[in-house]
């Protein structure tokens, strides 16, 4: 009942596998010729673009089909012939095989180099160098698709027993249609966004110069970005130096995070991770030690709002300590013995703030002949200097840190020791009249235009005064004098505070917002070097590894940034502590906001494996850098075929399941579709081996 109308009799209507093979070869040759001679002119010429390509593709196909029809008029009837489809599949398989044998998409010189001129000519004329985008490969696929379509129509799928069969093939057709729809309607462009920025212009990936840009119906705004990273991990690698083969062979590893142990059977050692410091630092700890000599010591911690300093002070050895924020430094002295009054008197500490200040004069000439910058450098108060290129000398009379002018007396003075308004008092004299009193005025560092020598005194130049600040401009000195009973904090020669405490009692006091904490006291201290971790970040990983061999245990300290091999008990075997080679980035998220005429229409998140979909628009990450995660390059793809492809796959899978598993349950496994009957009728030579 589901048999086809048998084709009219005649030898020419029978299709053998051989005919199909010949057809495919002719197809390949015709398409190659067409692509080489005609299409390539257009691809590089003004008609480049998918529309023209597709038009020509259709022309090629129609031409090929037409010629085939002319030659053998029943080719269309034979599209549903299974043999024809099988031959097509074989040809596709063979071309896929070829595509793995012949290197694809290399520059043309590489082919000549690799295969020689003769093979290169064949490869290029048959487009074997780029099989996947050659016309003949596309034509083979299209014929297979056409064969599937004809097959479905002819097999009358409304018969329930053929549902699975029809679903499979319809699925493939829908799938291919979706991909083809995608191919010709899709556009893919990139958009670069900074956080908070909204854009609606895409730069097309393969557009020509005139239509490189496309404007989307909505704008994309980058709301938030987030980078999810793996922490860098480290392992102890066990390596064997193979002298015969002259190579190193890593044969086992002990990951640090396992915090475990590893028996090295090869050498008889047993490794154990004792401690791991991701951000390792080394410090000297002092521990109580009962033996002579006596070293009395206190650990004092100084804390301000922002900084924290910890230092050890040994009895009788004053130590200066600079706070990290550079504006304050402390001189702390810890003394085990109670100080006498004389000792305190001897302590005179004054601010030494401005020792490093430098004073420069910049000379600006009125007649702009000399355009170079001219400076009188390293001016010392009291010194006299020649102004270059003029007949004048300048004397730096006096330096005021905090210039203050008494309006009644007209005399200047320092209002404080702080450099609030640095000012230099100068005297200018003409060399020709050295005895004249000259011109005396003030030059202000923070207000260089206030004193204008050229307009006020008709001089041919101006002087600008610069005070170059030294690094440690402002210091306070504290001195802690301590004893068993008392710690004195002395600042600028003045006793700021005294704090009494008992032996072994830790004390704490505050002075001008600075907290001093005596955290440890040792009666007899001993040095011990220890490793510690400053943070959890693996910035400078250190490892303490215990190696046990033959009943003895030794401990080694290994650094990952400076890896040094540790020899194991057997010759040629060693261990190295090194970073592991694994990807740092785990995922990258972008929060995207779509706006249409200023109104929010959609919010979504993009991750590396999950684009954000809006209608037929898909938003992918194209690029991002670890250093600047707030700047991303998104790829926007418009692909209306995606859902078609999905449903094609779904139908295909359902069809396969139905045809292979559900249908046999109803005992129809042996009831074959009509093709076999027809093939048997047509093919008088009997079934042929296809492969």
């Amino acid at each position: 009942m589901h048999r086809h109308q048998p084709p009219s009799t005649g030898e020419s209507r029978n299709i053998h596998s051989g005919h199909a093979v010949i057809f495919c070869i002719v197809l390949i040759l015709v398409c190659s010729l067409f692509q080489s001679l005609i299409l390539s002119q257009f691809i590089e010429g003004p008609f480049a673009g998918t529309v023209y390509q597709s038009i020509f593709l259709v022309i090629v196909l129609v031409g090929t089909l037409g010629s085939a029809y002319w030659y053998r008029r029943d080719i269309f009837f034979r599209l549903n012939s299974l043999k024809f489809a099988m031959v097509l599949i074989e040809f596709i398989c063979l071309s896929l095989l070829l595509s793995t044998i012949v290197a694809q998409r290399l520059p043309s010189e590489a082919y000549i180099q690799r295969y020689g001129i003769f093979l290169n000519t064949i490869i290029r004329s048959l487009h074997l160098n780029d099989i996947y985008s050659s016309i003949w490969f596309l034509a083979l696929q299209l014929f297979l698709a056409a064969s599937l379509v004809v097959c479905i129509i002819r097999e009358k799928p409304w018969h329930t027993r053929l549902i699975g069969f029809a679903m499979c093939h319809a699925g493939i057709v829908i799938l291919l249609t979706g991909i083809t729809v995608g191919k010709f309607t899709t556009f893919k462009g990139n958009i670069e966004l900074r956080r908070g920025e909204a854009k609606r212009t895409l730069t097309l990936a393969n557009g020509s110069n005139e239509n490189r840009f496309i404007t989307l119906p909505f704008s994309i705004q980058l709301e938030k970005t987030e980078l999810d990273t793996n922490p860098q991990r480290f392992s102890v690698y066990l390596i064997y130096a193979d002298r015969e083969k002259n190579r190193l062979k890593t044969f086992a590893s002990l990951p640090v995070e396992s915090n475990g142990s590893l028996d090295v059977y090869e050498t008889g050692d047993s490794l154990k991770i004792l401690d791991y410091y991701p951000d390792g630092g080394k410090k000297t700890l002092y521990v109580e030690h009962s033996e002579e000599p006596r070293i009395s010591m206190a650990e004092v911690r100084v804390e301000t709002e922002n900084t924290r300093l910890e230092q050890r002070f040994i009895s009788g050895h004053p130590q200066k300590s600079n706070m990290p924020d550079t504006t304050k430094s402390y001189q702390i002295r810890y003394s085990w013995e109670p100080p006498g009054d004389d000792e305190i008197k001897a302590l005179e500490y004054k601010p030494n703030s401005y020792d490093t200040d430098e004073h420069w004069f910049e000379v600006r000439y009125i007649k702009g002949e000399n355009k170079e910058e001219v400076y009188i450098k390293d001016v010392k108060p009291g010194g006299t200097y020649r102004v270059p290129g003029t007949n004048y000398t300048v004397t730096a009379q006096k330096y005021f840190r905090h210039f203050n002018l008494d309006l009644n007396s007209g005399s200047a003075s320092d209002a404080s020791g702080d450099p609030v308004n640095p000012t230099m008092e100068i005297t200018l004299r003409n060399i020709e009249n050295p005895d004249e009193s000259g011109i005396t005025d003030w030059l202000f560092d923070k207000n260089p235009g206030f004193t204008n020598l050229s307009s006020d005194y008709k001089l041919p130049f101006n002087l600008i005064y610069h005070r170059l600040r030294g690094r440690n401009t402002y210091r306070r000195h504290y001195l802690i004098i301590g004893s068993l009973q008392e710690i004195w904090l002395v600042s600028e020669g003045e006793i700021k505070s005294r704090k009494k405490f008992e032996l072994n009692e830790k004390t704490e006091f505050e002075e001008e917002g600075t907290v001093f904490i005596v955290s440890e006291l040792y009666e007899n201290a001993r040095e011990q070097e220890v490793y510690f971790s400053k943070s959890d970040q693996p910035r400078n990983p250190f490892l303490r590894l215990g190696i046990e061999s033959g009943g003895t245990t030794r401990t080694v300290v290994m650094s990952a940034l400076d890896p040094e091999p540790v020899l194991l008990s057997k010759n040629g075997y060693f261990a190295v502590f090194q970073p592991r080679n694994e990807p740092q980035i785990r995922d990258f998220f972008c929060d995207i906001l779509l706006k249409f005429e200023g109104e929010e229409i959609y919010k979504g998140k993009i991750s590396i494996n999950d684009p954000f979909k809006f209608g037929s628009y898909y938003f992918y990450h194209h690029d991002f850098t670890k250093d600047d995660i707030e700047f991303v390059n998104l790829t926007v793809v418009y692909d209306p075929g995606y859902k078609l492809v999905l449903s094609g796959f779904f139908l295909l899978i359902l069809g396969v399941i139905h045809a292979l598993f559900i249908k046999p349950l109803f005992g129809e496994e042996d009831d074959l579709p009509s093709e076999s009957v027809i093939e048997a009728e047509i093919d008088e030579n009997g079934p042929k081996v296809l492969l």
Partner: protein
Amino acid sequence: MINIVGNYFRSGAVIQVSFWLTVCGLIGYLAGIFVRRKWWIRICSHFLALNMVLFLAHIIISWSELGRPPFQSLLESLYLLGFFLLFYGSWTGHFRGAHISGMTAQALALFIHIYRFVKPDLEPVFSPPALTSYWFIPHVISYFLAYGAFIFSALGAVIIILNPRGQSWFRMSYLGGPEFDWDHHVNRMVSVGFTALTIGLAMGSIWSKNAWFSYWIWDYKQVWAVMTWLIFAVYLHSRYIHDWSGRRSAWLILLGLAVIIFTYLGLNFLPFSDFNRHSF
């Protein structure tokens, strides 16, 4: 050699026990040819089932230890394949009475263990972010489900090609006896494999679309994967429509298996296989 012993000791209890189960199971099957007792073969079947449980336990344990599915390195994927092989072997051996499947499964499991002892993973491999998709797990599992089924259909194909007939004890208990229809069995296995392969291929394609904005990237692994699919599609068509069966179909299956082995392992050795996101 000394490394192989060391690697054995470093492998953990589950692998060590599984190794000895495999060795004993395989020796048991081989000895069963001469011992000729039903209970002997039954013990071998139980060894096989226990080994399957241990393979699964190994996968679960490494999953929890690594914090990611343990299918990323070649060795890890071999253990997944091994689990499916032992499963199919148990099924056809124990329930269908063709114990040669069980023997084959044990032999392949032994190969996997030996491979591990010779070339272990030095440390967990972590894939680049694009490979850590949620599609990864079902894609890989369905692929290995398919590969396992195809390997056993190829075993059946070899038996069909060699075509042993007769009533000896070996043929009775190892090949399922005269009433065991190998042709039908092979067809079932291909059906299972082809369905899983189709699902895997579809998922891979959708995954590719999600991660690389294209269903299809012409890399060698994908090209060969679709060749596998096409060859088994040809098999099914030739069988259902051309009425092929027996040796002719069997050769087609062996061709398919050759393509699978090349897809799985051989592509890494291609001279110009540059960066390939599927390679191990």
